[in-house]
């Protein structure tokens, strides 16, 4: 019994964790997207008001109703009287588009003209009808602690919950949303095309054309992967915005060529530049991988049959790389569609769908519509994916692990020069982006006062221009970075452990439904963070109808969100290790008396060290740099640096945003370096490299 117990516990923990923290929020988003409340009819409204009023103390009830009716304004009196007449099925004998004082007289006359029995019935209704029409907000605040929030909300809005497709059809009707959707598609198509081209040019240059400084190019291109959010958009503003170094300081203030207030980078092209650089690492990794898996002998075969460079490229290299290029395009497309950070910072006058979703949630708390738009966001990416699957459904021509060490097809000098130029321009731009952000962190006020200061790191105010405006009065300095770091330090080891436990459970214990559980664990990898964030907001505001279990507003929800949003990295890494481990090792442990937990703890965990480190590191970096999911989950008490960077960069607090960015960048790079060194030392300790002892 004892031996089955540990296995059962592990299955329960993994299934419970994934079920509650992945399936539940995503299910909540889907459910919310179909919520279309129906407005109550007048009669229903009065009935609902009567029902809610029961929760008022009995002695207060009548008194309040009468008081409200007596203090009702003229127009409220008119509307109430008209409604009461309608409810009794009596004709409204006056024109309702007259001025209210005229209507009031007519209403009084109409009442007076009724037979006394009917008149008494209408007059008795008046206080209640008045409350139903005009005092629902007040009543809602009085009963808000006695009734469930959802009921109170529905009463205040005068609706009943219902299901329907209205949220989905909104996109097809609302011109504002349509414009945003068109913008999103145009942006995603442009960015994805550019990123894919750039990724191919760089990867091909590094691998085949042997451009100079290839390791530097790789490192710089991958740098945005570990950088804080919207850093590129932010830097673009610092260069080309209204206060930009190039636009204002150089062209406007110094040369007087343009007016930086009107001629600047805000808008479509600004977002494209920011996304190009921000999404380049993901695309580069995919294309680089695709190119390095190609079989060198195929190109050599083409050359030996007389093909020139261009023909080799066209008939061999590109067709073989096509699935990889398509993957890079789709990934960039989806990430661009769901990115609201960069458009938020630099896309003024260029609304995109993701930004609309953000506004709907933060501004209007309109979750159902936001949820439906999130589902719409997935549609183009999913369509592209299915298309690509169809197009490339054929055997893969991978060279497997046979590395492409000896590509001997000579790249023409002109092409080599072009690729080198692209590499220099790209790496130069990225380097400039990071340099500008670092510089602005030490600058008093960018675009105005380029003096040196450490004030942004200390949290001191540097400009008094906004004193009293409410702008930038909070969250200066690095306090939020420490909060982010707390989240990272708690989430990373927990995430790493849970991922390995999940990998082991899914791969070895194989409980019923393990395929579905595995799918759930990987789901956050393909779902945009924005959906995952909204899901947490919807699911954990009032989980299972128990407000005391609410996680929103706590530090825990941030930790859990980051943990489960990146669970897939550790799970994938762990399962890869498990699939390589000879099964005999676990059988050996079993015959020696080790139960499920002991096998995991003593035998497999030591082997999955690297997977743990990778999973934990990913969670750690994401905790410091993610924006899209946590932005909906932060609260005044628990504010994360990444969210503040977004807020402050889209405002005008460049120095403060830059200081936080620099701090995060420094921490992430330091942690990655430490992880690398620790891993190397570990590997040596447990003899993963040959070692001799007497």
């Amino acid at each position, binding site marked *: 019994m004892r*031996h*089955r117990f540990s296995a059962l516990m592990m299955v329960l923990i993994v299934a419970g964790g994934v079920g509650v923290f992945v399936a539940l929020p995503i299910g909540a988003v889907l459910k919310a997207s179909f919520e279309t409340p129906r407005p109550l009819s007048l009669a229903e409204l009065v009935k609902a008001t009567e029902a809610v009023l029961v929760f008022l103390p009995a002695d207060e009830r009548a008194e309040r109703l009468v008081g409200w009716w007596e203090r009702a304004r003229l127009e409220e009196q008119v509307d109430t009287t008209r409604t009461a007449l309608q409810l009794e099925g009596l004709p409204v004998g006056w024109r309702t588009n007259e001025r209210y004082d005229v209507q009031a007289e007519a209403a009084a006359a109409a009442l007076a003209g009724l037979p006394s029995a009917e008149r008494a019935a209408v007059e008795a209704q008046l206080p209640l009808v008045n409350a139903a029409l005009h005092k629902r907000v007040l009543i809602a605040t009085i009963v808000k602690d006695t009734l469930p929030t959802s009921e109170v909300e529905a009463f205040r809005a005068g609706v009943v919950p219902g299901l329907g497709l209205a949220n989905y059809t909104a996109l097809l009707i609302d011109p504002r949303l349509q414009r945003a959707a068109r913008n999103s598609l145009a942006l995603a198509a442009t960015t994805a095309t550019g990123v894919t081209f750039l990724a191919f040019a760089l990867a091909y240059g590094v691998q085949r054309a042997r451009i100079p400084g290839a390791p530097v190019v790789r490192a710089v291109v991958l740098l945005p992967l570990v950088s804080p959010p919207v850093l590129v958009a932010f830097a673009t503003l610092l260069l080309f915005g209204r206060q930009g170094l190039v636009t204002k300081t150089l062209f406007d203030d110094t040369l007087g060529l343009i007016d930086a207030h009107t001629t600047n980078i805000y808008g479509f092209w600004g977002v494209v530049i920011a996304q190009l650089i921000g999404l380049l690492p993901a695309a580069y990794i995919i294309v680089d991988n695709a190119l390095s898996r190609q079989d060198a002998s195929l190109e050599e075969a083409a050359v030996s049959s007389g093909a020139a460079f261009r023909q080799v490229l066209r008939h061999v290299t590109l067709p073989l790389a096509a699935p990889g290029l398509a993957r890079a395009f789709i990934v960039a497309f989806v990430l661009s569609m769901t990115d609201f950070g960069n458009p938020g910072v630099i896309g003024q006058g260029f609304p995109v769908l993701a930004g609309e979703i953000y506004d709907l949630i933060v501004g209007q708390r309109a979750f159902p519509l936001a949820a439906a738009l999130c589902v719409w966001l997935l549609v183009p990416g999913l369509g592209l994916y299915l298309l690509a699957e169809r197009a490339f459904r054929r055997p893969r021509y991978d060279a497997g692990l046979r590395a492409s060490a000896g590509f001997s097809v000579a790249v023409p000098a002109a092409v080599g020069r072009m690729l080198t130029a692209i590499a220099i321009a790209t790496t130069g731009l990225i380097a400039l982006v990071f340099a500008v952000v670092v510089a602005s962190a030490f600058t008093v006020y960018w675009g105005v006062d380029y003096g040196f200061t450490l004030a942004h790191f200390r949290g001191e105010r540097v400009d008094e221009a906004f004193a009293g405006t409410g702008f930038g009065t909070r969250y200066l300095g690095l306090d939020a970075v420490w909060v982010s770091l707390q989240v990272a330090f708690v989430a990373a080891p927990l995430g790493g452990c849970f991922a390995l436990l999940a990998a082991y459970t899914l791969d070895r214990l194989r409980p019923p439904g393990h395929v579905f559980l595995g799918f759930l664990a990987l789901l956050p990898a393909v779902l945009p963070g924005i959906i995952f964030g909204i899901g947490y907001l919807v699911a954990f505001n009032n989980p299972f109808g128990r407000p005391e279990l609410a996680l929103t507003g706590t530090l825990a929800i941030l930790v859990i969100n980051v943990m489960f949003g990146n669970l897939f990295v550790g799970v994938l890494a762990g399962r890869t290790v498990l699939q390589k481990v*000879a099964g*005999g*090792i676990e*059988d*050996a*442990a*079993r*015959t*020696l*008396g*080790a*139960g499920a937990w*002991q096998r995991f703890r*003593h*035998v497999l965990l*030591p*082997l999955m060290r690297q997977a743990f480190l990778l999973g934990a590191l990913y969670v750690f970096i994401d905790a410091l740099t993610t924006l899209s999911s946590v932005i909906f989950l932060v609260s005044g008490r628990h504010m994360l640096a990444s969210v503040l960077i977004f807020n402050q960069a889209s405002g005008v607090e460049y120095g403060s945003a830059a200081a936080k960015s620099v701090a995060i960048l420094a921490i992430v790079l330091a942690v990655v370096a430490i992880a690398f060194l620790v891993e190397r030392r570990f590997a040596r300790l*447990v*003899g993963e490299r*040959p*070692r*001799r*002892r007497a």
Partner: protein
Amino acid sequence: MHLVVSGLTKCFAGVTAVDRASLAVAEGEFVTLLGPSGCGKTTLLRLVAGLVEADAGRVMVAGHDLSGVPAEARGFGFVFQAYALFPTKTVAENIAFPLMLRGAATSLRRQRVDELAQLVSIDDLLDRYPHELSGGQQQRAALARALAMEPPLLLLDEPLSALDARIRQRLRRELRELLGRIGVTALYVTHDQEEALELSDRIVLMDEGRIVQTGTPEEVYLRPATRYAAEFMGRAAILVVEVGSDGSLIPAVGPTVGGVAHDLAPGSRGALCLRPEFVELRPPEGAELEGVVRDARFLGAQTRVWVEGPWVTIVEADVNPRDWRCLGLVPGDRVGLDLRREGLVVLPETAP
């Protein structure tokens, strides 16, 4: 009987891997499960170990029914083909692993590890990691680990097959000597009949999930129960014959063979197994049978001669190289064959 297996059955995806296997092993006995790959011998071993759950049947050790007892609670020693040493633990930690799981004191563990290491002579390798050991050393370490808890039953799954031929032969002898000394009951799986003959007190021959024959090495080799057993246990040319009214064996073509002991009824079909070492070659004059030499190869201890026999079948004969030289025959020459009656086995032939 110490270990009693009765009616064990296991199916994988509709394929019966082990089919109603029953056997009994006495305390201290060394029994080998022998058969070609896919015959179910490893599955049977894993069923006994509890690594695989049986569909039917049961395993009893020392009178206790082990149904429903998982592998980790059975306390048997298991030695794996690929050693299965934990790569992140030293040899000492590997051997001490079962002791550690049971919370043995550190001093006790060290003492026991030293004892076991001496037993399998790897006491100078205790601080090494598995990847720093040779295959033979790894297998010794794995054996020490399996013996650490003084198991009532030691299960060995082709433990020598990953080693090269020389080491395999040396370790085979050592293993037999060591297990005899500590007197452990052992169930051993191999596909190598030579290994089975050398090691076992008894051999259990398996085919397609069924136990075909159980017996001492001599019994199984000299008195195979089926044609399959005869062919698997050594080289054998098979001659299909009909039993004559006087008990002589009549092939479809060629001379009749008489004077062979068998218990087949006259008129029934049989398979006559001719093992090469029971065929003697001599000059054709006065020989029992006559054939034509097709080829002869020197194999060291003997010369193997392929003779196109009197029954159109190729008959193999293993002869002393010196005797073969004395005969002075070359391919194409006629040669006489004598069949040594003590080596001839006649089995019932079921197929037409």
